[in-house]
């Protein structure tokens, strides 16, 4: 038989001590047994309701069963039908004391199984909703909204189509697509290898490394202020460069104010 948890043994001892003090009142000692049942899985064999007391507590049985591997005689007695038992002691269940205790035992303790040994709950139930309709409707509406926006925008704003490509006539200014204008802006400050390869290469490399470098397990914004500050500075850095490259660069890629010199920018 497996180990009986210490607190159960202790409680059984207390119950037995109470029982010896309480013998005259004849009962009320099954508390320990009932508590033991609540704490752990009780594997019990049903016995007829009612019946006479054998003068021993369930918890006591558990304790003695743990000590020896043989079922004590007084427990074996209980398995005999009530009618056949010798009427050693008569339990009188009163209205105030419900038929619980050594007088009213309806089961006997065979073994105590710790709850963790047969079932181990790892995932707790979480609040979930069906994808249909809850998520699909959101996705559908979002897709519809974007399609609608693109359709209407495309009706009113035409994609640029300048003159046929001409190798002999360099456009002034010559600008890369907008998402590369940050890099082109860097070209005005650094050597092309630094601006065009090293810095964006490092940027992508650092982005890839981010989850492996950032060892902070928290996701709450106030617990990762440094990471958020770093990313915000990084994003603002590129956004500013792209803005300058797009709107504040005129002929010869010189600095201009768009409200004075006009826009030199095509999508």
């Amino acid at each position, binding site marked *: 038989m497996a180990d009986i948890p210490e607190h159960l043994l202790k409680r059984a001892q207390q119950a037995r001590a109470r029982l010896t003090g309480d013998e005259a009142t004849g009962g009320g000692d099954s508390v320990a047994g009932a508590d033991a049942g609540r704490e752990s899985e009780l594997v019990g064999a049903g016995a007829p309701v009612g019946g006479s007391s054998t003068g021993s507590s369930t918890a006591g049985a558990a304790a003695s069963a743990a000590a020896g591997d043989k079922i004590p005689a007084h427990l074996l007695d209980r398995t005999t039908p009530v009618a056949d038992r010798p009427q050693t002691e008569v339990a009188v269940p009163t209205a105030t004391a419900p038929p619980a205790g050594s007088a009213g035992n309806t089961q006997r303790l065979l073994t105590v199984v710790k709850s963790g040994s047969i079932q181990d709950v790892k995932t707790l139930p*979480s*609040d*979930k*909703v*069906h*994808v*249909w309709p*809850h*998520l*699909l409707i959101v996705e559908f509406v*979002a*897709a519809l909204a*974007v*399609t609608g926006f*693109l*359709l209407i*925008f*495309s*009706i009113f*704003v*035409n*994609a*640029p*189509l*300048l*003159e*046929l*490509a*001409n*190798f002999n*006539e*360099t*456009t002034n200014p*010559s*600008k*890369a*697509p*907008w*998402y*590369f204008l940050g890099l*082109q802006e860097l070209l005005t400050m650094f050597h092309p*290898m630094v601006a*065009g*390869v090293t810095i964006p290469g490092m940027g*992508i490399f650092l982005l*890839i490394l*981010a*989850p*492996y470098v*950032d060892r902070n397990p*928290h*996701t*709450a*914004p106030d617990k*990762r202020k440094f*990471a958020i500050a770093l*990313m915000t500075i990084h*994003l603002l850095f590129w956004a500013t460069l792209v803005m300058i490259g797009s709107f504040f660069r005129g002929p010869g890629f010189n600095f201009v104010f768009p409200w004075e010199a006009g826009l030199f920018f*095509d*999508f």
Partner: protein
Amino acid sequence: MSNLPTRSTKAKKAAGDFTDKVTGSQAWNSIFRPGSIFRRGYTDSPRNRSYVIMNSVLYHLHPVKVKRHAVRVSYTLCLGGLSFFLFILLTVTGIFLMFFYRPDAISAWDDIATLESSVTFGLLVRNMHRWAAHLMVLTVFLHMARVFYHGAYKPPREFNWVIGVVLLTLTLLLSFTGYLLPWDQLALWAVTVGTNMMGYTPVFGDQVRFVLLGGVEIGRETLIRWYVLHVLLLPFVIVIFMAIHFWRVRKDGGISGPM
């Protein structure tokens, strides 16, 4: 006048019988799997809600159930989903454009001009393709920012973040390769600036440039190269990475939890 209602009820009954016959037929039931809302007797039950996802080739990218906070628009802002949707939209409009475009320096610009002036909806579809492309760069970028600010790249989602960075790079490359195809002054000189920068790659910069341009200067060979990259190679690669990305979202336990 008095028999009009009777006639209409009769017609209604006939229509109803016909509908029943069609939706009860073997052909119909072979097309629409159990749980489809087009099946007869569809009821809104948890079982059928699950079937809608499980029995649909499109929807079963999704799990049957997601955490409640995952459907909150204010959390994801739909940015990842919209990036994917824009990719689909770009594929559809792109295929349309391919019917009218020849990737050759002699005909490319003329084809676009003809598309805009003479093809039904040609201008509209080209506009949509262009604006959707720019929007996709934006949504992918914002999606990355959103994921970062939620700390959603943290374990167990580190590798999916890496895939995401690859997807961002591929999106930029897709957009950039498409930039050259109209073969106008904007395209030519924007790509000149871009590829000049790539030429400064250390050690093998010249080789990178040569492979990308199909020569030492931009020309006809560049156009066909970038066309193939734009319509075939890069979409093929990005679809593979997207598949891994979406699969990992589910394997890593759905989208990240609330902060």
